[in-house]
């Protein structure tokens, strides 16, 4: 299962900058990034090519960091392709915690990172039902 980094940070300037500094030092590739802010703190989510190594390095630098499992699905454009997935989840009564679309190709294809509490089942279901689910290797090599 592919993993994404999740960092707890106080809303203070310079946090993301420090994180990126660490990644650049490691020659780490960032595939996708989101920031969700609450009032005084935020969660930064990062899809990188070496999540376990990144977690260790961030931890050593004093960051509060966790890994969460994700699936990445290739869809034929947004909203049409994405709608296919949401309709499918609705029919199975599965809740999507977070979804991020990125990497829009010229042909209209897009990649969607999906987080859910039940990722392993979600992945199996998507594969069984013909969705184009990326392998871990494909994700990390993006």
């Amino acid at each position: 299962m592919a993993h994404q980094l999740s960092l707890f940070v106080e809303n203070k300037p310079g946090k993301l900058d420090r994180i990126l500094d660490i990644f650049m030092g490691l020659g780490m590739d960032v595939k996708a990034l989101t920031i969700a802010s609450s009032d005084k703190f935020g969660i930064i989510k990062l899809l990188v090519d070496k999540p376990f190594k990144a977690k260790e390095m961030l931890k050593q630098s004093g960051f509060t960091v966790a890994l969460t499992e994700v699936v990445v699905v290739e869809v034929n454009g947004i909203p049409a392709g994405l709608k296919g997935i949401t309709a499918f989840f609705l029919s199975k009564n599965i809740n999507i915690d977070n979804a991020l679309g990125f990497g829009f190709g010229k042909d209209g294809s897009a990649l969607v990172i999906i987080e859910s509490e039940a990722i392993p089942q979600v992945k199996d279901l998507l594969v069984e039902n013909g969705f184009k689910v990326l392998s871990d290797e494909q994700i990390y090599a993006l």
Partner: protein
Amino acid sequence: MYWDKEIETMSRDQLEELQLKRLKETLKQASKAPFYKSLGLEDYEVRTLDDIEKLPFTTKEDLRESYPYGMVSVDRKDLVRLHSSSGTTGTPTVVFHTIKDIDAWSELVARCLYMVGVRKGDVFQNMIGYGLFTGGLGLHYGAERVGCLTIPSGPGNTKRQLKFLKDFDVNFVHVIPSYALYLADTAESMGIEPSRDLPHLRTALIGAEPHSEETRKKIENFFSIDAYNSYGLSEMNGPGVAFECPEKNGMHIWEDAYLVEIVNPHTLSHVKPGETGELVLTTLSREGMPIIRYRTKDLTSIIDSTCACGRTHRRITRISGRSDDMLIVKGVNIFPVQVEAVLLGTPGVRRNYQIVLESKGHNDHMIVKVELDPGMFVGDIRGLEKLKKSLTRDLRDELLITPEIELCEPGSLPVSEGKAVRVIDKREE
């Protein structure tokens, strides 16, 4: 079982007889000090112990105004030691001791140590500040009196502390509770497993800082030891005033050395038996600087029932706060130790915290900053919101007002290796 059986198990009548005799001697001695001379102390007549209520109080301000030598009641050539209380700004309060005072103090501390099972031959690491502060030297002398190998490590240099504990087969330590918790965190991160790596350690004496029962339990569980609560203040020597016995239900206060009163801090009259109030103490065996009816500002109550350990000296309950520490927020009395107790019972946050008080319009606003426990972070914002909600609810139930919770990154709040400073009051006067 007892260091001084005759004194420690003396009948109530005998004890009070001894107290009255010593109180009279103390008044006579104190009258020699310029401060008490100016109060006309020698004109007060004391026939019974109840007459103590007729005598004037002594406050910290009195000690400050008597700086430097105004409280001394012996020839200055007979003084051998000076201590000063911690954490004061401006003029310090100082306390002087003669050689006889140091001897009597060491005896009291030895009595405390023996009570919790410390014996000759034990190894003792004293992680409390030396110098002007009384905690270090007070315990040091008492432990040497019992016959312990005493390591005057003082606080700080945590990794060396842990090394010494292990290498010298240390049996007991004296430590400030917040530092004991910090020591536990450090030990954990260094992979030290106390039951395996510190098999000789069996006792911690904790004091000098208000703390909760939960804190004691945490210390006991982590190190697999017994932790005993100690009470003292520099004006009354320092440690050795009151100490828990193995029953761990209140601290025996040595009534042959201190006359105990509990007063209502507003009316200054005695509270009803068992009620909480301010502890007021009179020294009964000090010659260099006797103090009459000293207002400690510490809130406690007396446990009058007999103790299973056989000691007849009454017990005082855990200090529930200092009138100085007490915060009044939205008209409600709050003690930081209440916040600590809630945090210790909340998985997901660490022990470190800070209270910030602000004015919002004409209202008080209380912010509690807590550090997230990195081990409990699973990566989603919903979990954090849930944590905030449950903490808010638990604190409201405990404090009766609703604070705002601010989750902070671990390690971002100041860590105290000494006395914890946890309250920032930014309210306008």
